[in-house]
């Protein structure tokens, strides 16, 4: 089969449960042009190289919304272009290049401090146990709705400083806006409109919240970002409100759905290979390596789309300037030239340089938090769920091909153990 239509099949929801055989076919040609002009990169060496290549941009991705007319001249000629321009200038840093990216990310990293993230371990443990307590008396749960979904949104809300009463609303927004990170749904007009509506709502909400954080500073990320750091001369730099809102939305969205998928994919995988579930039960210290292997084996973000800003010769072909480039992280993670026996789930794998969190300048900002959430959640589930079984395998998946994960994961079990 020609590789030029393979990626289309990857996007086909019918292949969501197991896209890996398609990746194997794609890897026969490590960098392959698709019929629509997109270049798909599927091998580890080439992806690792391109995530650190300065000819690969995260900005100026093709925007299908650009020429959508509403028929209202004021809207089309003034309001929309201005809003689009503002939006373009204040894209979250995931869609920015240096030097802007570095400046914004640096400010976020300062607020997302190791000490603050570390404190979330205890909070996450409490939350996890609260959620598991609610399983009591049930014979079945939907892991997604009953556990994986509520956990990360609560954690990120606490970290950001969103009041608990606003969390449910935040969860709704997070779910909707996750589609904005889904590259191939950008063309869907209805989704676009919903996202825009949602973005307006969340922006208004955040604008008020930021004002509160300025009036009454608290110990949270939003307070730090809103007020900037007061130490040092060049440290007084702080984000303007546009960037601040874009950043807060990004942290919410990117930190949410991906973590849901990491936890759900992990439980699914561990129950498919029960010896690993048992090993985690017996020895929670295995969790870190197990999670890294999970990020290789079933990465929550399967691919990212970038743009070539110059011709890039690679793997015997040349990606031309202005071509969209799909970095198929999940395929690189199964590349037999990099990982021995790549389709085997093996937490003891040496030198596991997976691409689960991407790489280069855009390496996942939330990775430390995701690791904590996954570790705490998996260790607690393995310890407390008695005899868990998959009810349906494969489970139903959400439509997204990039942010890929089960929509539901129905588990049967024989009760819960004490924490």
């Amino acid at each position, binding site marked *: 089969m020609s590789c030029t239509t393979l990626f289309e099949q990857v996007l086909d929801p019918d292949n969501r449960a197991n896209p890996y055989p398609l990746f194997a076919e794609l890897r026969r040609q490590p960098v392959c042009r698709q019929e629509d002009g997109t270049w798909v990169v599927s091998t580890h060496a080439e992806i690792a190289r391109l995530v650190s290549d300065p000819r690969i941009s995260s900005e100026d991705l093709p925007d299908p919304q650009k020429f959508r007319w509403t028929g209202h001249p004021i809207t089309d000629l003034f309001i929309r272009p201005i809003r689009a321009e503002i939006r373009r200038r204040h894209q979250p840093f995931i869609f920015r290049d240096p030097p802007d990216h570095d400046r914004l990310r*640096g400010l976020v*990293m300062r607020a997302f401090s*190791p*000490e603050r*993230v*570390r404190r979330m371990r205890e909070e996450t443990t409490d939350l996890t146990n609260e959620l598991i307590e609610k399983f009591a008396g049930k014979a079945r749960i939907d892991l997604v709705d009953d556990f994986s979904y509520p956990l990360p949104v609560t954690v990120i809300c606490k970290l950001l400083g969103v009041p608990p009463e606003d969390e449910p609303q935040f969860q709704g927004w997070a779910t909707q806006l996750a589609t904005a990170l889904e590259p191939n749904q950008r063309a869907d007009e209805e989704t676009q409109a919903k996202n825009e509506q949602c973005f307006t709502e969340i922006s208004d909400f955040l604008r008020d919240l930021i004002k509160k954080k300025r009036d009454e500073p608290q110990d949270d990320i939003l307070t730090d970002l809103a007020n900037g750091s007061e130490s040092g001369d060049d440290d007084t730099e702080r984000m303007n409100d546009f960037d601040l809102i874009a950043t807060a939305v990004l942290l919410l969205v990117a930190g949410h759905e991906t973590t849901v998928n990491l936890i759900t994919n992990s439980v699914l995988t561990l129950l498919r290979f029960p010896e690993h579930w048992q090993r985690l039960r017996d*020895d929670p*210290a295995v969790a*870190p*390596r197990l*999670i*890294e292997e999970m990020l290789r084996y079933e990465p929550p973000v399967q691919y990212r789309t970038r743009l070539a800003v110059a011709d890039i010769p690679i793997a015997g072909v040349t990606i031309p300037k202005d071509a969209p480039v799909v970095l198929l992280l999940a395929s690189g993670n199964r590349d037999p030239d990099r990982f021995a026996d790549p389709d085997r789930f093996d937490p*003891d*794998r*040496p*030198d*596991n*340089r997976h691409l689960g*969190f991407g*790489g280069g300048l855009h*390496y996942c900002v939330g*990775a*430390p938090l995701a*690791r904590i959430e996954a570790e705490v959640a998996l260790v607690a589930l393995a310890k407390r769920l008695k005899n868990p079984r998959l009810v349906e395998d494969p489970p139903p998946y959400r439509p997204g091909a990039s942010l890929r994960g089960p929509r539901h994961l129905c588990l049967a079990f024989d009760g819960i153990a004490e924490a």
Partner: protein
Amino acid sequence: MVEPLLRPSLRQNAGRAAGTIGRARRCMRPSTLLPEPDEPRMKVVVDLNRCQGYAQCVYAAPRHFVLQGREALIYDPSPDEAARAEIERAVHACPVRAITADPDAAGEAK
């Protein structure tokens, strides 16, 4: 013979083995024995050529890895055995696998 490096039996012996070279001990003459440390300590080294300042170790084990400035990593080369869980988290979290701990928690002989 080097893998898997963290078989449970090795892990249990890890602290005690820090001052000796495992089975080599019985074939060594007394003068060649390495000094026994006072308390069990891990040994850590980071390949700073490979390090790109992702700071994942700093999150995993903030008392033992510190980023100074934008990407200058300094770290505890001899952390207390009690820090093992944190150090192992750091080893596994490193995106470029630049950290080696004793015994080699990365599962790699470097």
